[in-house]
């Protein structure tokens, strides 16, 4: 619920510019570059009890994305324009934890995402951004007993939605106008909601089913990796 509210607010914030008049020429109105490449690292701080049972550490990782401006809206007041971009990216993360001083857990996830970004240049070199995206990928979880190395790995396809607000510090590196290149830093905080993954106790050392006794596997329950996200990265605008 909390995640849904956060995403909703950010998506509305991203899309509010559509209500305004006056789509202007990119090159004339916006001081920001039309293309941005992002490389980032960060963490996801779990908000669901099921995840922290396995790991108290955030899901750490990184990713990359490419952003292309699709419209630039002229704004009244002190700011010249609000850029609207489409974005496509990939990210992956993992975390490790110990439960009961005996069970070692590894959670790894990757996803591709697509979404939109609203970029409000405060100055040429400082932008406020709002971002929303949806995506899907795979999540792997393994619980292993440290005394025997007995383990139960499982994996599932998961889907998610994310929203974030941030700042981009993008000083111009070279050139001007259409030939300008910007290089700088991104910082953003947000929230990611994912579909829960049902974790089954499938032993990793088990031979194929046709060679084994029929088996039934207990369910550990649903693993929900929802959480607050934080990203720090570099960006190139051109």
């Amino acid at each position: 619920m909390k995640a849904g509210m956060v995403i909703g607010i950010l998506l509305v914030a991203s899309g509010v510019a559509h209500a305004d008049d006056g789509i202007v020429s990119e090159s004339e109105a916006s001081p920001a570059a039309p293309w941005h490449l992002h490389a980032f690292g960060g963490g996801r701080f779990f908000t669901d009890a099921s995840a922290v049972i396995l790991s108290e550490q955030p899901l750490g990782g990184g990713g990359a994305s490419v952003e292309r401006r699709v419209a630039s809206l002229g704004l009244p007041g002190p700011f010249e324009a609000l850029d609207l971009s489409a974005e496509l990216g990939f990210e992956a993360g993992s975390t490790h934890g110990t439960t009961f001083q005996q069970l070692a857990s590894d959670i790894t996830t990757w996803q591709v995402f697509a979404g939109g970004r609203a970029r409000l240049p405060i100055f040429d070199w400082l932008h406020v951004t709002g971002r929303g995206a949806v995506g899907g990928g795979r999540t792997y979880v393994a619980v292993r007993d440290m005394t025997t190395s007995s383990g139960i790995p499982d994996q599932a396809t998961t889907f998610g939605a994310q929203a974030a607000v941030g700042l981009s510090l993008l000083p111009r590196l070279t050139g001007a106008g259409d030939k300008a290149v910007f290089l700088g830093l991104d910082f953003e905080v947000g929230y990611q909601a994912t579909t829960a993954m049902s974790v089954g106790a499938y032993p990793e050392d088990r031979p194929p089913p046709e060679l084994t006794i029929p088996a039934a596997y207990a369910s550990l329950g649903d693993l929900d990796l929802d959480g607050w996200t934080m990203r720090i990265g570099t960006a190139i605008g051109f």
Partner: protein
Amino acid sequence: MRNLMILMLLAGCAERDPAFDRPRLITGPVPLKDQIAYVDGALDRVVLVDVAEETPRVASVNVGRRPIWAVPTPARDRLLVITRGEEALARGQIDEEPALWLVDVGDPTVAPTRYEIGSPFDRVAVSSDGAIAIAHFSESGPDAEGFFRNPNELAIIDLSPGAASPVTLKTLRSFGSAPTAVVLSPPMRVPGAADASERVFAFVLAEDRVTILDVTHPGAAEVTIRLDTAGASVSPQEVVFAPDSSTAYLRSDGARDVLEVELVSDPPAADVPGQNDYRPVLAELGAGGGPSDIAVYDDINGKRFVLASTPNTREVVVIDADTGEFVRIPTDDPIDRIVLFPDSPDEPPRKAVLASIGAQLPRIEILDLEGIDEDLIPRELETLDTGAPVMSIEPVPGRELALLVHDNDRTVLGLLDVAYGSVSPLEGVARLDGYAFTPAGDFLVAATTGLPRLGLLELDNLHPSDLRLDDVPRRLFALPNGTLFVDHGDPLGRATIIPGPTASRDDSIVLSGFLLAGLLEEVP
């Protein structure tokens, strides 16, 4: 960064309950009627694997903090769990007193009954009817927590539903020693007592003493019998009961004879509350020479006999429990083990197999019990050469058969047919780490921890067969419904459930991960 993390926490990040950082101690498996129970000391729950139906079901029942001991009732339909409790010294801990939990394993949806036992007892004894339990300290005594501890304290718990004040704490008179064991009698009547109802007596064994408690009337005083009045130290080891005559027979290390303790009526004085309506009458049954093993049985006419082996005098003594008369049967060997056949509650034994386990002799002797009451005529012993030293005799339930173990590694075995007086050697490929006889006594099922298979021996014709497993076995149980349960020793829970000794691999099922079932949904 630290401030950011604090901000994240304030924003609603989940925080793990400290209970998930506790050490994980799994007790079990404990075989029950149609279930196998495991006690999870980290999640404070009993995990039940129900094998009554074709598809096994896993259920869990929450108990108190820090379960330390679990024991089933004799009928194996309920499980008693002692929880140590804890003190709230750190975040996530709670103040909880030690408790005994009665878990109805037949219906895991029913909340277990909690009994506040007051002290951190770590053992429990249950009466044969499952109506009364006694919580007590083990020989190692109380743990290090707390200030004062009283090793002679007991908690008598009335397990009847709706008991008004089910727990009675009692401290036994002591002469410097602490209890080593508590044995509860079957329900029995005290002949001639005004209270003719059946009651349960507890025999509390301690160095140089035995204490008798009428636990059906826990407010009554205990009776302490000193065993060292002759000077030598005596350590009581074994109690067997003759409930029809309200008698117990006590074997002790350091004693020359079997002590007969008969409970007789002794009406209390009207003005002395809490006084018992019985007293024990003691008799030393003439075993002589220090009995090493005793066995009690009722013959087909209901007459009770006590057999006692005295290796020091190379005799077996047959005692008429009603009269105390006895006869000595000389033996060639220092007999220290008596096993009665058939081993059945419904059939009186017909033979006694006598072995010299301590001397590790390659022979046994068989005593025919039929007609032994005819003037107590000494019987001839039949000596049977076993071909290898006898280290252990394990009777097959309901049959006149026994498994003989010939070496410490349990690799050389034999099957003794008591009726025919024969021993058939059994050749195994590895050490016998676990075995079970099926409830009907028709199969011996065996396992070794290094080999992923079960060995099955059809006892009627000694036909061996195998069942290949997917994992090496650790523990093996034959449940009353005929199901074979093989635990693989996986801390995450892995077991193979086999419907019966003739079932195939396709009929069987492996259950995996049941000890972690529902872990991600746990709310400590």
